[in-house]
């Protein structure tokens, strides 16, 4: 379970370019729920995700994962509970390391790293099996540098890596945005499959309203650093993109003019 209470983050506080990215954002996600997050540029989506992962310290508020207060924990300590796939396919993997080394690194996420061999023969079988489920032929390329893979392939491996080690929360930060439509579709289906298999509490930020409604079981919309819309269950099942837009306008009482929201 993820509980965020009154999160506040202000960039460049006290200067003319002060930005109040999160303004007392509160959200509770029960264990195993798959939530999609939408919002226009600057709504605070990425800031929120970075706050949960620990990349950005919060000015005020509290973040709990399964009852444990992680608000002050650095990223690497939080990694035991939080797995993450970045928007940039280059960011989620180490291009200088081989596929198996990347996966071995992820295998020990949150565990103590000692002086045992990083890549053991016994691990390779597991890596191969998982890579084979992608259907990309990567199971035969374990010792290739991951920098040789395409963006889509790297993103797919990142997803596998996120699920290698049991964690509590999976954060997906527009992880299909940098891919071509076909690859994006592939990665999205892979995401749905992995989330279903691992029953991870998942938060997926997306720019596409279509995508936000198609996957997951709950959709929230952020605006000016707060949750302004939260739909799930029956209400969400019957919704289409125009409905979502209409609801947003009603909630905010203002005309939505941001093109970014209409994309997709």
């Amino acid at each position, binding site marked *: 379970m993820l509980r965020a209470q009154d999160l506040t983050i202000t960039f460049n506080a006290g200067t003319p370019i002060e930005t109040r990215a999160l303004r007392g954002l509160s959200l509770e996600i029960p264990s195993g729920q798959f939530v999609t997050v939408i919002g226009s540029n600057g709504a605070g989506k990425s800031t929120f995700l970075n706050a949960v992962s620990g990349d950005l310290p919060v000015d005020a508020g509290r973040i709990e994962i399964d009852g444990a207060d992680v608000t002050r924990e650095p990223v*690497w300590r939080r990694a035991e509970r939080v797995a993450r796939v970045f928007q940039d396919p280059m960011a989620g993997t180490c291009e200088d390391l081989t596929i198996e080394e990347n996966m071995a690194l992820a295998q020990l996420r949150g565990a103590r790293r000692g002086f045992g061999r990083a890549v053991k023969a016994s691990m390779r079988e597991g890596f191969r099996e998982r890579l084979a489920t992608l259907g990309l032929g990567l199971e035969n390329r374990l010792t290739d540098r991951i920098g040789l893979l395409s963006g889509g392939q790297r993103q797919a491996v990142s997803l596998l890596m996120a699920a290698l080690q049991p964690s509590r929360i999976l954060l997906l930060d527009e992880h299909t945005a940098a891919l071509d439509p076909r690859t994006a579709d592939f990665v999205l289906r892979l995401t749905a499959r992995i989330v279903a298999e691992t029953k991870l509490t998942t938060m997926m930020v997306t720019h596409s309203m279509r995508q936000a409604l198609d996957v997951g079981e709950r959709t929230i919309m952020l605006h000016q650093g707060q949750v302004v819309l939260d739909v799930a269950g029956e209400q969400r099942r019957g919704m289409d993109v125009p409905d979502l837009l209409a609801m947003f306008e009603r909630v905010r009482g203002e005309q939505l003019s941001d093109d970014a929201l209409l994309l997709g």
Partner: protein
Amino acid sequence: MSLFSLLGALEIGLVFSLVALGVLISFRLLRFPDLTVDGSFPLGGAVAATLISGGMDPFSATVAATAAGAVAGLITGWLNVRLRIMDLLASILMMIALYSVNLRIMGKPNVPLITDPTVFTILQPGWLSDYVARPLILVVVVVAVKLLLDWFLATQTGLAMRATGSNGRMARAQGVNTGGMVLAGMALSNALVGLAGALFAQTQGGADISMGIGTIVIGLAAVIVGESILPSRKLVLATLAVILGAIVYRFFIALALNSDFIGLQAQDLNLVTAVLVTIALVIPMMKRRLLGKKGA
């Protein structure tokens, strides 16, 4: 070039291959441009020479010198990680600080080791002359260090260290304490340099305050030369490459200085180094350009 100067070049090349391995860790694996090396090399020499001339056995003195190098690297890493001083600047601060520290340790600008025992005089078998025995002993040391380093970099901790330099954000997301890894890597790197300094002082008959000048350039030259003669992404080969690079580089220097027709003298060493490094840096680029033209 005589056999004598050939063996001498091999000897110095082997010593500097330890520096090159250290530079490989900082510059290549951690991507931390570390100039501490210019201070930690004479630090190793100063500690070893001072302790040996004070009566300590050479092996303990060499271990102490290695530890001193590690501490120096640790402080540079700490300046960068904890105090958030830019990496290059942190290492420069440490480098100039070490100049004073080294003078303090030695109490004078140089400590000779002419009659004192060294690890080489102790290990040298009676039937071998010293200029053959020294390179042989160094080969054993360098091979042992290389194998240990290869082993370490293949461990879970070693992999985490490599990930830290390659993609710190990803490493943190995988639960790697990247700050700690930088500290450990810098300590390891400068420990090797300290060891090199200690061995250098024992082969050259003493430590001198100016023995560190240009160490980083020589280390980098070895790494670059090694990478151009044996380009490989495999770490086992990369460590071998920089060792070969250090030796080959030293041979070129000896060749340049020993060829009377060029007319170079010992004081031209740093100039020759700079020119050689420039050539080593430019050749791969020229090669790419030529190959690119052929391909187009």
